[in-house]
Each structure stands twice: as C-alpha cells, then as structure tokens.
C-alpha cells in the first residue's frame, strides 16, 4: 500500500516508514519547514527582542512581531495585539482563570464547565471557584457523549459568570457547536472561554466572528514546536484585566510602591519572549495553510470513518462519542477483556502508537464508567495503512488474549453511540 506522500514532509515519519503514529491529539509530528524556520532564526536573527537598539535585536523583534501577526491571521483574528503567546493551552486557560477569575469572581457566582473537558479546562476553574467561594457546575452529556444543551440551559443562570468548554474533545473527538453553546452563556452575560487545543489544529477558526471571549490553543498539536501556544482574547476584556505574571517587558513604570503595565499584548507576556518557538509556530501555520485546513479535516474524517467501520466489525469493540461526522480525527474505543494499556503494548510491537489512559479527562472517564480507553487520533500525515495496522493490531491483541474471557472486573460497559 502506498503511504501518504505528506510523510515525506515530516523527518520523523520519513525516517520510520513502518511507524503508525496515531497519537497526534497528544502532540503532532513536526514538518521539516518548521524545524528549518527555528534553526534559521537562531542562526541568523537571535537576540533579545524589544530590549535592544541594535539591528540584530530589531530583527529578532520583527521576527517575533511577524510571528504574532501570522498566527493571529491563521486563527482569523485581525487584532494581533489580542494574541498573547503562552506556553500552551494549559497556561492560557490558567491565565484567564487566574487573572480574570480572581479579579471578577465573588461568592455566590457560578462557573459552568462541561463533563467533556480536559483537566486544563476543568481544574483551573474548579480551583478558582474554591478560592473565591463560587459554585462550580459540571454540565452533563447526552447518551452519545455530546454536551447536553438542554441541561446546559437549565444550569446556566444569571449567577453564571463563566462558561468554559472545549471546541473539540481530546478524549472522544466530539466537535462542539461553539456558537450554540456560547449563545446560552451570552444570554446571561457570562464570560465565554473556549479551549481550542483540539480545534485549532483541525478546524478553521475565525476568531473575529466566533462568539467567544477567549480561545486557547497549543502550538505543538498543530505542527508547531513544544513550548509555545496562545490565548486570543477580546481587547476590552484583556485591557480591563490585571496582568498574570510580573517582570520585564510587561511593565510601564516600576515605582517602589506600585507599578503600571504596558499595553497589549506585552502586559500579559512577562519575561524574555520565546521567539524561536513563535517563529516555528508561524511556520506551522504556513504549512497548514499550504495544505489547507479543509482538506486536512476531510482527510482525517475519511480515516476516522474507515477506522470506525473496521473496528466496529470486530467483536467486543466499543467506540465512544458521537458518529464520525460529528468528530474530528479521534477514535476512542475499548476491547472487551483487554485493558487499553495492554492493547497499546501489543499495538506498539507493530509500530502502532495509540494512547491508552484517561486522556487527562477523569471527570469524563467516570461518566463513561471506565478507568481508561484506547484512543487513535489521526492527522494530515496518516493514511489507510495506519488504519489497517491499527485494525490488525486489535485482532492480534485478541489472539494474544484469546481464551481470556471477560472477567467481571474488566467488564467495560459500552455506552458509546457508535
């Protein structure tokens, strides 16, 4: 079977023709152009930006500024100053929960999240709720693991100050109807926070017209390097918020008794910026645009459909989440009598890399009634050979564990819609 020609763009995949990398929801592989861009930055333009009055530092400043513009454009944000570079989604969400939350939340206020959330969009809100005496509310799911909009409508009320949810669930791949969810929060004036970690890599985001106040994302999941990500926010909210961290680049005046802050985006970027990785992320945006996000999603969905079909045909396989057309590149499943961890070991023997575990989503796992699932996630470099290897691997695992009939404690109740 001929492999996806895009593998050639990714040095790690090109060097390992037999590797079936199906863990892109955890982190994507990096195209050569991204690695080249970072290296070229360090070899040609490296200096501390903003701070130097010499030409090399001006070049570093320009590179950083251009990277911000490029990433903002990729996400459909025309006001690039409203893009704050962070280490990634986790830091972006902590920034909002901490800086906005501590300034605005009072006893009796309510924060609503969904049962689909990654810990990064769950625990920061839970903790700020505890700290501020607010009520922390978890919106339940439908039987096919989508956010239950009817339930959400009853949970959201005038005391709701924050509504936080993900664009796409990392554990199940569920694509959430951002506008419909946001509208429910808007009706009561809540802050709308969208965790885009799994959205930005796969779906075209148009921040200017998306009805959310904050959108958080990670570079490393969208072909960019580790160590960089961002937070898009509405200007008026960012300007009214106190800073998150304090230090160089984010101040205006430092008196002994008090300090004043720089303008956006600097106010939220304390310390030496991560220019190298920002340049890498901008190159990742170029790369993704050269492929076209629409064709990325179409490609993934075709593989997800195929994998879903073939896995479903195997006895004992249970697939979680809604139907493939409502999912991005994720297939989360279990095999009766085989713990996901053991399944992963068997698959790994054939170079098939899947994720086995809780996917940083313990609240969801509790609601699914499982301690772990197996998750295969697809991206633009995957192909049918990957699907076949996955399916073969599951069959092989069943052979290895043959005779190991279900035992009671292993029984995984399959409540997946598919």
């Amino acid at each position, binding site marked *: 079977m001929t492999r996806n020609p895009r593998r050639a763009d990714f040095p790690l995949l090109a060097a390992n023709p037999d590797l079936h990398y199906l863990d892109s929801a955890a982190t994507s592989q990096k195209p050569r152009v991204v690695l080249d861009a970072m290296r070229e930055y360090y070899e040609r333009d490296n200096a501390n930006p903003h701070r130097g009055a010499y030409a090399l530092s001006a070049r570093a400043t320009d590179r950083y500024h251009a990277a911000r513009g490029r990433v903002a454009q990729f996400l459909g944000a025309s006001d690039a100053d409203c893009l704050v570079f962070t280490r990634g989604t986790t830091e972006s969400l902590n920034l909002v929960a901490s800086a906005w939350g501590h300034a605005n939340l009072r006893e009796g206020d309510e924060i609503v999240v969904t049962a689909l959330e990654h810990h990064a969009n769950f625990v920061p809100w839970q903790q700020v709720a505890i700290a501020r005496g607010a009520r922390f509310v978890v919106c339940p799911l439908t039987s096919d693991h989508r956010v239950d909009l009817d339930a959400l409508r009853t949970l959201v009320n005038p005391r709701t100050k924050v509504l936080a949810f993900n664009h796409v669930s990392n554990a199940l791949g569920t694509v959430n109807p951002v506008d419909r969810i946001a509208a429910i929060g808007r009706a009561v004036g809540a802050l709308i926070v969208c965790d885009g970690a799994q959205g930005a890599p796969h779906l075209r985001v148009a921040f200017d017209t998306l009805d959310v106040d904050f959108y958080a994302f990670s570079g490393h999941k969208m072909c960019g390097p580790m160590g960089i990500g961002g937070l898009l926010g509405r200007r008026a909210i960012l300007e009214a918020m106190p800073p998150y961290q304090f230090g160089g680049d984010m101040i205006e005046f430092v008196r002994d008794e008090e300090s004043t802050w720089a303008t956006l985006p600097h106010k939220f970027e304390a310390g030496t910026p991560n220019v190298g990785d920002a340049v890498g992320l901008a190159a990742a945006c170029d790369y993704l645009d050269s492929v076209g996000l629409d064709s990325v999603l179409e490609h993934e969905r075709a593989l997800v459909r195929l994998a879903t079909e073939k896995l479903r045909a195997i006895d004992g396989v249970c697939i979680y989440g809604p139907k493939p057309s409502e999912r991005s590149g994720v297939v989360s499943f279990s095999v009766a009598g085989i713990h996901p961890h053991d399944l992963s070991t068997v698959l790994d023997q054939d170079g098939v890399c899947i994720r086995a575990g*809780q996917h940083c989503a313990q609240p969801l796992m509790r609601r699914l009634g499982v301690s772990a699932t197996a998750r295969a996630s697809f991206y633009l470099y995957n192909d049918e050979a990957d699907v076949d290897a996955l399916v073969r691997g599951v069959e092989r695992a069943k052979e290895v564990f043959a005779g190991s009939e279900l035992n009671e404690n292993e029984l995984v109740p399959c409540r997946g819609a598919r």
Partner: protein
Amino acid sequence: MSDLQELYQSIILDHNRRPKNYGSLDEANRSAEGRNPSCGDEVRVELRVADDRIEDVRFTSAGCAVSRAAASIMTQSVKGKSRADVDKLFEQFHSLVTGKVRPSEQEARALGELAAFAGVARFPIRVKCASMPWHVLQAALRSDAAASE
C-alpha cells in the same frame, strides 16, 4: 516465543482472568493504595500482620493484565513472610523485571510463578505495572497498624 508471547504468558493471562486473593480482607490490620494517574491504574492491598509475618493478604485493582497478574502472584508468594523477606523477594523480582540479572535456574525455581514476569524486561514502560503492587504492599507493611485499622 515472541516478546509479546513472553510477556503475556498463559500464567499471566490466567492470573489476570482469575486473580487469586482478590477482594477485601475482613480482619486486615494494614492497608495501602497505589495509583498511576496517567494510565488510570489503581491497586489496593489489605494485610493481616502478626509477629511481623503476613498472615493473610488480599488485593483489588483496576488496571492492566500485567499489574493485576503481578498483584495476584505476589499475594500468593508473600503469605507467611516477614517484612525483610518481602523486601528481599521484591529486590529479586525487580532485578528480574528490569532485566538487570538473569536468574539462575535455581533462583528461577525459588521465584516460583513470579519468574513468569521475566518477559517484562523487554518492555521497560511496563516495569512499573509489574512493580506497583509490590510498592503498595511495602507501603502497607510500613503503614501504621493503628491508623489503618
């Protein structure tokens, strides 16, 4: 035998399927729990200890075949043993699963069913699955009797 068959020997699969000493111990005077948050594995060990000897032991677990089988075989191997015996046995077991020493035939015989875990050495990421029950057992042995009663 492939690495995989070596890891998932029938002895291990059998203990996974029908674990020994599974459940809770009514007259336990020591207990401990261990967790691996990243993969979701959990093990609980309950003991009855008298005169520094393990009189009885039971466990419960939610986790992979390796950890469940390891717990099951462990509980069989440690009955009647002292804390020092357990530490020594775990040392041997740990050397085995990390592949540090290949046990002699005699040593392997002394390990009994524990020897089935030699295949883990080829799967470094699974070492912690096999060792976890032992860490929990050691924690239980060191736990304050009064506190866990």
